[in-house]
C-alpha cells in the first residue's frame, strides 16, 4: 500500500497524486495519513482505487468520486461524498451535515450517525447509516435510497421527490409531502441488498418505508387563494 502524508504534501499534493492515476495503474491501494480535519481530501477521484484515510476529515471528503472505494477511518465533516457519481465511500465514525448531498450514484456508508440534511437533494446515490440521522434528512431527495438503521429527526423527507427512505427506528416527524408507504417484496429485496452491500446487520422487516405523497408535483387550483 502506497502512503501519502497529507501533512507533508498538503491537500492539493495528495489529490494531484491520486488524480494522476488511471484504471490499471500499478498502485491501486493508497493510505492517506495525517488528514488533520482538512477539507476536500480525495475529491474528484476517477479511477477504481482503494483509498484509506487514517483519521478525521473536514468538509467534502470524497466529493465527486467516480469508481474509487474510499474509507475514512474516523469522522467526516460537512458534505462527505457530495455529488458522488459512482464508487463507494465508507465512514467508520459519524458524519456532519449534508452527507451524500446531490450525489448521483455509488454507495455511501456511515457506520455512526449522520447529522442534519443527510441525503439532501440526492439524485441516485444509495446511503446506509448505521446510527441515526438529523433533521431535514432526505430534503428534496430525487432518487436513490436512504437507509437509516437508527432514528430520524424532524422533517424527514421534506419536499421529497422519488427517493426511497427506509428507517428502522423512530421518526420524530415527517416533512411536507413525505408519507409512510407500504413495504412491498421488491422493497424488502432492495433493502436486504443494500444492508448486505453496506455490511450492516439488521432485519429488513423491522424497517418502514417513506416516500413522496406526490401532492406537491402539481399546482392545486384550490390553493389559488393562498397566493
Amino acid at each position: 500500500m502506497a502512503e501519502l502524508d497529507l501533512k507533508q504534501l498538503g491537500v492539493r499534493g495528495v489529490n494531484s497524486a491520486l488524480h494522476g492515476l488511471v484504471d490499471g495503474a500499478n498502485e491501486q491501494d493508497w493510505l492517506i495519513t495525517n488528514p488533520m480535519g482538512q477539507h476536500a481530501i480525495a475529491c474528484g477521484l476517477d479511477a477504481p482505487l482503494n483509498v484509506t484515510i487514517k483519521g478525521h476529515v473536514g468538509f467534502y471528503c470524497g466529493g465527486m468520486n467516480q469508481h474509487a472505494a474510499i474509507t475514512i477511518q474516523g469522522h467526516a465533516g460537512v458534505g462527505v461524498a457530495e455529488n458522488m457519481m459512482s464508487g463507494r465511500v465508507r465512514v467508520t465514525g459519524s458524519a456532519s451535515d449534508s452527507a451524500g448531498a446531490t450525489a448521483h450514484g455509488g454507495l455511501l456508508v456511515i457506520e455512526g450517525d449522520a447529522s442534519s440534511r443527510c441525503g439532501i437533494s440526492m439524485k441516485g446515490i444509495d446511503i446506509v447509516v448505521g446510527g441515526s440521522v438529523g433533521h431535514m434528512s432526505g430534503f428534496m431527495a430525487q432518487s436513490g435510497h436512504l437507509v437509516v438503521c437508527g432514528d430520524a429527526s424532524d422533517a424527514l423527507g421534506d419536499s421529497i421527490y422519488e427517493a426511497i427512505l427506509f428507517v428502522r427506528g423512530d421518526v420524530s416527524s415527517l416533512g411536507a409531502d413525505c408519507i409512510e408507504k407500504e413495504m412491498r417484496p421488491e422493497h424488502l429485496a432492495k433493502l436486504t441488498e443494500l444492508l448486505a452491500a453496506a455490511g450492516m446487520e439488521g432485519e429488513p422487516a423491522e424497517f418502514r418505508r417513506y416516500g413522496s405523497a406526490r401532492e406537491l408535483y402539481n399546482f392545486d387550483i384550490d390553493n389559488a387563494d393562498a397566493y
Partner: protein
Amino acid sequence: MCGIVGLYLKDRKLQASLGALFAPMLIEMTDRGPDSAGFAIYRDPVGDDQTKFSLASDDPGMEWTALCEGLEKALKCAARIEVQSDHAVLITGGEALAAQAWLGANCPDVRVVGSGRSIEIFKQTGLPKDVVEQFKLTSAQGSHAIGHTRMATESAVTTAGSHPFATGLDLCLVHNGSLSNHNDLRRELERGGIIFQTENDTEVAAGYMTAKLRQGLSLHEALEAGLVELDGFYTFCIGTADGFAVVRDPIACKHAVLAETEEWVAMATEYRAIAHLPGADTANIWEPEPHKIYTWGSVH
C-alpha cells in the same frame, strides 16, 4: 462565514500552555474569518473587592498610566494597569459600576471591551495570526479561552465590531452566523437602557443576554429565551467565569463541533481547529444538536 473556537482545560497542569494550545485553533480558522480576530482569556482572577477591565483605544498616544492615576484619585482606590498594544487591562478596587461610570465620563474614547474578575478580552482588525502576535496569545496562561475570526457580513470591519462582545461580568459571546431581527431588537433593548457601540448584529445578541441577566435570569434561562427571540442563523459560544456554553439555532446551518478528553473540552466551527490539540485523534467528538444548550464548568 466566521470561525469560532473555545477551549476549556479540565487538567490544571495544562493551564501554563493555554495560549500555546489555543492560538493554533484561532489561526486555523483564518479562512473563515480574515477580517478581524479576537479572544477572551480567563486568567489570574482578582480579589472579590477588585474588578478587571479590558480597555481599548484607537489613539496611539493614549496615556494609560494617566488614566489609571486619574481613576485612583477620583475613586480613592488602588488601581494598576497593564498595557498590551492598543489594549490595556485595568485592575481596580472600589465599586465596579462607579469605575465604569468614571471611565465613561472621563475617557469617552476608551472602549470597555470586557469586565469581571478573570476575563481579559483582546480584539483587532487584521489576520488572526497578527492579532495572536499583537496580544502575545501564544505565551498566555489561563484556564479557558474563546475566540473568533470574522468575515464581516452585517456591518463594517472595525475593532469595535470585532468579537468577543462582553455580556456581563466575566461573560462574553462569540457568534458565527447573522441575525435578521437585530435592528428591531436593538431599538427595543435601547429603550430598556442597553447601550450599543456599533451597528453589529452580534453586539445585539450580547446586549440581549446582558438585559436578560440583569432581569435576574440565569445564563441557561437567558439562552433559552434567546432561542425564541433571536431570529437568524447562529452558533454561539459564551465564555463564563469558569467554563463555556454552546448553543445553535433550531435550523443549525452554522457548523459546530465539540470534542472532549479527560484533559480538555474544545468547541470549534470546524474540526481542523481542534485537530491541533493533544489527543484530538482519540477524543470523544460530536456535533452539537440544534436548539440545545451545552455547558461546561458552572454556569451562573
